[in-house]
């Protein structure tokens, strides 16, 4: 397992390098990507711009520019072209909000996804299944920005049940932290609960038709034990995989919409702002940050998968 982890780590470096090159090239080619205007301002004259071009090394060959950028990325000296803010500091500043949002939501969506999925499968075709299926479909179809805006309007503006957005650090005010996060947690979870419910339902129904479940019944086990030990154990394996990847992506900045609607100042929101202003250093920083978490979690998923399914061997 240690060797597997080491190999994945080496792979990860290569993946990150590849991603950084692609990001850099896309940015280099994109119309309106020229950073000089952003640094000098629109009202600047040609002399200033030429000076900036020279100072920042924009006249250097592409690979030199790339090398410089990566050097700064690795050393943590990456600075935004438009507002001169250090990218690493911004990421570190956004991390608590994003982690609070994602971890809280993940607990909620896993719990309810599994609960509804199991109920749906056990009552397949009967009314609890029908109700859950309709709710799951609604959950999957609800746009996050719409749901978020609606909740904000009705639950904070009309009825002041919850604070209107923003993030309060856990260490400063645990109660405030909690009340500020309830709506975002719920908003981010809805979609995942819908997906997990549907996936677990179909997994469980598949597994229930497996021969080994019939064997388990033939062994004289109680229905509860058949479901708990034989059906669930196998039906949850794909859920674990999906969960790992979803959490990785959400920490990596995937919760952009939720963070923006509730103004959590998390990493997703930072990603959205950087992309909006076509600012290369933060784009590079956040892309590599996101890629890091996604690659990390997929490695964790692989290791977990091998733990859960004895047929899977990590190739040594």
């Amino acid at each position, binding site marked *: 397992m240690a060797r597997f982890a080491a190999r994945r780590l080496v792979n990860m470096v290569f993946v990150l390098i590849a991603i950084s090159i692609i990001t850099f090239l896309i940015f280099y080619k994109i119309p309106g990507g020229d950073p000089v205007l952003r640094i000098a301002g629109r009202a600047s004259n040609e002399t200033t711009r030429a000076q900036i071009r020279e100072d920042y090394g924009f006249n250097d060959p592409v690979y030199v520019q790339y090398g410089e950028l990566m050097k700064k990325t690795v050393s943590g000296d990456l600075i935004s072209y438009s507002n001169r803010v250090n990218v690493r500091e911004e990421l570190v500043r956004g991390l608590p909000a994003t982690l609070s949002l994602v971890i809280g939501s993940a607990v909620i969506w896993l719990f309810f996804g599994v609960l509804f999925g199991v109920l749906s499968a056990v009552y397949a075709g009967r009314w609890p299944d029908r109700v859950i299926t309709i709710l799951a479909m609604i959950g999957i179809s609800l746009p996050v920005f719409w749901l978020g805006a609606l909740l904000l309007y009705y639950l904070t503006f009309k009825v002041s049940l919850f604070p209107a957005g923003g993030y309060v650090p856990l260490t400063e005010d645990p109660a405030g932290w909690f009340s500020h996060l309830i709506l975002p947690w719920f908003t981010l979870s809805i979609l995942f609960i819908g997906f997990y419910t549907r996936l677990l339902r179909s997994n469980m129904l598949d597994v229930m038709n497996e021969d*080994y479940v019939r*064997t*388990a019944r*033939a*062994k*004289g086990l109680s229905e509860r034990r058949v479901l708990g*030990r034989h059906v669930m154990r196998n039906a949850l394996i794909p859920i674990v995989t999906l969960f790992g990847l979803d959490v990785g992506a959400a920490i990596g900045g995937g919760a952009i919409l939720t963070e923006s609607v509730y103004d959590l100042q998390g990493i997703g929101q930072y990603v959205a702002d950087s992309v909006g202003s076509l600012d290369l250093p933060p784009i590079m920083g956040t892309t590599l940050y996101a890629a890091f978490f996604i690659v990390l979690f997929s490695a964790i998923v692989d290791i977990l998968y091998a733990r859960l399914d*004895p*047929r899977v061997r990590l190739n040594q």
Partner: protein
Amino acid sequence: MSAPLLDVSDLRVSFATEEGVVKAVDGVSFDLRAGEILAIVGESGCGKSVTALTVMGLSRGPNATIEGSAMLSGVDLVTMDDEALHKVRAERVAMVFQDPMTALNPVYKVGDQIVEQIRAHEDISKEAARARAIEALRSVGIPNPGRRYDHYPHEFSGGMRQRAMIALALSLEPEVLIADEPTTALDVTIQAQILSLIERLNRDRGLAVILITHDLGVVAEVADRALVMYAGRVVEEGTLDDIFYDPQHPYTWGLLGSLTRIDQPRPRRLPLIPGAPPSLISPPQGCHFRPRCPHAFTKCPTTPPLEARLPDNPGHRDRCWLDSETKRARRVVEDRIGLVASAE
């Protein structure tokens, strides 16, 4: 003759499907005596597996309707409540399934799956159950059972998995073993090993076995008696000699005729039974085999009962209206038993 261990009487199982009600088992009766091997033979879809699953209570479900009875020394398995059924399963009647590749749970160790069964039925310690499981694995001829206990199903070969399934089935020393095509998914050499294992357990422990198969070779190998099933009904029942040397039902002739035998000249083409089995949603009126039977006559649209039709052999029963003289004359095709001549 001792009282039967298992007495199945007029068993009817039907399933509601979108196309209609499938009458999978349509009035099956038989008995299983202590210490005998009873084969149930028939082609796919004839209801032999459903019959077996119903005896185990495994065909119950929201879409299933089950009538008739299956008395296991005085208690009816058909009407028994789930709680009591859990006690009967594995403890008194155990089952081995067709495909050993999929019948064991891939995520648990083989030994643990046996221990799970033992501890679901008996209040004993893990260590004691483990010892029993190892003993069960040893008794079915798995080499090195102590080490094999900790292996996962995918680390076993097909034959070893089927042995492990049999070990699982026998770990609580049931009175009846139902083996549903236990050798179909295995290589021929392994088939022979599994069959001789079942035979040995039958001989040594007096285990009564219901052996479900579509392979008449398997029947000839190990069974004491056989039921021939067709389209949800038993069409013929008798000892091995009855079935192989004096078959009374044209369907049985067809089955025997479609066998190739090593001690007889090779046919130019394999004789087969013309036509296909009927739909079980709307089976033909009267004898189910009528549409495929070249000997059908005016009486066949009335269902023939399964009864002894040979005065000197009350144990040999069949469902065919023809009189036994006519049967004996008509079943000889090309100097052997068959239904139709092999096609040129």
